């Protein structure tokens, strides 16, 4: 489990309009590119310094490749990050609040306590 890396993916994609569109239209390609180029980038370093050890598990990679917000919730990805990014990608295809309600309804089977989101 690498909740931190899932969150790092959601965070860096959501904050970049170009990446939001690439993730919407080509999730498999974007996830492959991101894991190769971005997963180990130290975001606070200005000189391109890299970490050496960050990688998705197969389940995490698959959840991201398939836009599976229910699986991401179950893995403990930060719900605010997932929601914000998925609204950016898919709200446009729906009526007012329709997507947000469907997003919640897809999680209706979830009971308390929710998965741990601590990193």
């Amino acid at each position, binding site marked *: 489990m690498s909740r*931190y890396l899932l*969150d*790092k993916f959601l*965070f860096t994609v*959501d*904050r970049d*309009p170009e990446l939001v569109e690439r993730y919407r239209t080509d999730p498999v390609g974007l996830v492959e590119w991101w894991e190769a180029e971005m997963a180990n980038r*130290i*975001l*606070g370093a200005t000189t391109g310094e890299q970490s050496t050890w960050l990688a998705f598990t197969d389940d995490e990679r698959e959840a991201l490749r398939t836009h599976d*917000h229910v699986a991401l*919730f179950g893995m403990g990805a*930060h*719900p*605010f*990050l*997932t*929601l*914000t990014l998925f*609204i*950016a990608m898919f709200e446009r295809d729906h009526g007012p*609040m329709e997507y*947000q*309600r469907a*997003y*919640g*309804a897809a*999680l*209706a*089977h*979830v009971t*308390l*306590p*929710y998965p741990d*989101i*601590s*990193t």
Partner: protein
Amino acid sequence: MATVCAVIASTHHPFYYRASTATGDDRPPFADAWVEKIERFRETLTAARPDVLVMVGSDHFHQLWLDNMPQFLVGKAPAYDANWYNEEREFGLPRLHLAGEEQLSAHILRQGLDSGFDLAFSNELRIDHSITCPIITLRPEADLPIVPIYTNIFAPPLPPPWRFVELGKQIRTMVESWPSDQRVAIIGTGHLSLELGGPRQFGPQGPDPEFDRRAVDWIARGDLTGCLEEVTLDSLHLPGNATHGFMDFMLMMGAAGDGVAADHVDSLDLFHTMEAYFTWYPGGDPR
């Protein structure tokens, strides 16, 4: 010494700006009632005649990130840009620019560190809607210098509720010991029950109206004892998965004073979450 002319606690609803400025068919049916309540709330700050605003909020993973996450952070800069691309995208929030009150920032940092709060600081901080929402609702002219203070209600492990209360008390003490003749309003925003990204989000009301009713009662009466008896990091998961933002209300109860009832109390039951607005006047109600 500086005067605390008002202590104000509020929810920060990013949809207010769009709802209040929408016209025609785009204007939601609840907008007029919402604007009316906000304008009444705004009058409580205007009546206090503030010169400086200390603004307590929480970064929503904009500038603060998990590779270097402070629990409590004070901005110390001559200016603050405000709002981010994804807040424009989702909420239609405008970009803002606010002046900073660096002397008060420096005073709070020094006094905080000397009194046992290991406050982080930032000399270049772009603030987000936790602080710009109350600017839009309470001081839309955005013409007063600010000291932003961020709390971590978002990325566990979080500080416990009592620590928020203690910081609120300390902020009040620190502002009152600032060698200045300025009138300072301490404004903080948080949440009542709230669910984001979970099964209880975007319902016809907030996810836990009973928690909201009790929370408004605690805040309105300044009932820190009752609140601290019941609210824990664990208990806040129950009303909704983003309800830890309530700890910023607890911080403001600390700033207002234990057992001190608010001079202005209002709330609005909306879809998704309840809005709530509180003002205390430490020196007496100027209205």
